[in-house]
């Protein structure tokens, strides 16, 4: 039995979804559940202005330097945009009814807004705060030092944003999502050319290292690999 009748009594819906399998395991031709690749530069959720502001913020979290390209160059904004259009953005897999109390630090965000709503409100609040500081000059036009100063203040909860937006919590959300975009499989729109994986030396979506188990203290010789492969798979010339 897969699944178990004995657990049925505990579950809210008293149904056991069991199946008896004997002999050959079930199998179907073509069975695979591959993710749909996010096209480069796709934008479905953010407005132009929102995308520009988020790019500027993300590029201070992961700036272009000798280690890697910047977060936006690696597609992190495309990644977050796609996520916000999907089940992550609509919090479809989270409990989203009250009570809405300010949670403990260990509990994270406990409010009523979905991630998509939090981005819409959070980016608008930062843009309004910036406009009040330097009328006519957007965050993207600030110097790197000025940008860092504001982000540090947000992180330290020293800025009061308009419309009751919790600046510290929103900064943490962006920080988390930018890192996810930088290190998730490129199939989801970020980590372009596996920039994040190359930076930390992660070999990617591989699952067989047997030939290397005995080779201690030697670098792994191959480029990382995405769910959809890598450049090595493509014929060079010929």
């Amino acid at each position, binding site marked *: 039995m897969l699944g178990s009748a004995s657990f049925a009594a505990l579950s809210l819906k008293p149904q056991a979804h069991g199946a008896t399998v004997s002999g050959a*395991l079930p199998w179907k031709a073509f069975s695979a559940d591959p993710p749909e690749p996010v096209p480069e530069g796709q934008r479905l959720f953010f407005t132009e202005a929102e995308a520009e502001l988020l790019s500027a913020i993300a590029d201070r979290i992961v700036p272009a330097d000798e280690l890697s390209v910047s977060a936006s160059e690696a597609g992190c904004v495309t990644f977050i945009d796609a996520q916000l259009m999907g089940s992550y953005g609509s919090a479809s897999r989270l409990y989203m009814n009250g009570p809405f109390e300010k949670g403990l630090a260990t509990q994270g965000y406990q409010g009523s807004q979905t991630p998509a709503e939090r981005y819409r409100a959070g980016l608008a609040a930062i843009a309004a705060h910036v406009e009040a500081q330097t009328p006519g000059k957007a965050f993207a036009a600030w110097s790197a030092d000025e940008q860092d100063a504001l982000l540090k203040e947000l992180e330290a909860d020293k800025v009061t944003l308009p419309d009751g937006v919790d600046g510290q919590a929103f900064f943490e959300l962006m920080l988390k999502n930018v890192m996810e975009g930088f290190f998730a499989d490129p199939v989801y729109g970020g980590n372009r050319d596996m920039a994040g994986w190359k930076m930390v030396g992660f070999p990617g979506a591989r*699952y067989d290292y047997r030939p290397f188990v005995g080779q201690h203290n030697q670098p792994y010789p191959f480029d990382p*690999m995405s769910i959809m492969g890598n450049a090595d*798979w*493509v014929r060079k010339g010929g």
Partner: protein
Amino acid sequence: MRHGGLLRFAGWAVIGLFLAVSAPARADGLVQADVLYNGYYQSVLGDCSGCHTKAGGALLAGGDPIETPFGTIVPPNITPDVETGIGRWSLEDFRGAMHRGIGRGGKRLYPAMPYPYYALMPQRDVDALWTWLQTVPPVSNAVEANLLPFPFNEREAMAGWNEINFRPGPFQRDPDRSDQWNRGAYLVRGPGHCAACHSPKNVTGGDVADRYLQGALLQGWFAPEITGDAWRGLGGWSEEEIVAYLATGTSGRAVASGPMREVIEASTSKMKNDDLRAIATYLKSLAGSDGARPTPVAADNPRMVAGGAVYRDNCAACHGTDGDGARNLIPALAGSAAVQQEMTDTLARVVIEGVQGASSDKAPTAPAMPALGWRLSDAEVADVLTYIRNSWGNAAAEVEARSVEDVRAKLK
């Protein structure tokens, strides 16, 4: 051509029933049991249920449609049902169908029913098979066998076909060979009808005699050469390995899939070990194509380089960096005749849609390979196939992306 696992024991259950009903005449009963067992065993050798039983359907009550190059034909209901089966047939009618391809009322059968091979079966065995068929539960299921388009739907045309392709029996022993060899030759050429799939076909669909068992394409699968040829055939297999493959679907070298998997499940896995050994002896004695082995594609060829990377990242975990597989579970690609075949349709198909091996009583697991077509382009499939066909001592022609594209289009 699909078989439900339950069918495996159905033949026996039927025999049991028959004996229970006809208990009184004891001495006769025993003789009768021998005849019935022999009849049942002939149905195993001829794989009747492989074609005449639908997946999950009643025993011999009509099979799944068979695609032939000439159109679709459906194996009919051959249970003793009077209206929709062969309940009205006489033994003479049945002998005519098995030995000459002429059914009740002079109806010419299409050779999709393998009578050109059954023609080699001795009358005694055909009669025993007939006796056993009478014990199969009658099932009412009307089947229209002939779905062929014009002109192939003309049964009379089969007279001409027989003229060209049909050599009537019986089987001729070769006195210079051992009994075991002769038994194998009889099983392969006769009831086992191996050439129906493994021999190349002429334009009329008949076997090409001088390329006997040298491999043929059918329904998107390639049935490889199974002669003793060292490169393309079974020359590298031991007799034990051939017996294991036919008995369980895996020899450690190859794992059967597609139509061969069905043949194994419904037929060869139920054959007696001595018969399988005889088949192995016979197959290995055949000279085969004796084709010149090509030079392998160079390892630094761009297709080999790209294909090697695809292999390393998609296949090596299962089939091994050295192509040696995992015994009885995952086939070795190194030294595999199937991998080095002339036709690459099966190979492309396996990579694109995945494949599951045979399940038999002796090896029920049925190992499977996942579909990889969703992540590999046609060029990547072509290159990885080129790579496995030309690594670890293998040597065979490169695979073109265009031929992979054709296979993919047909599968969808």
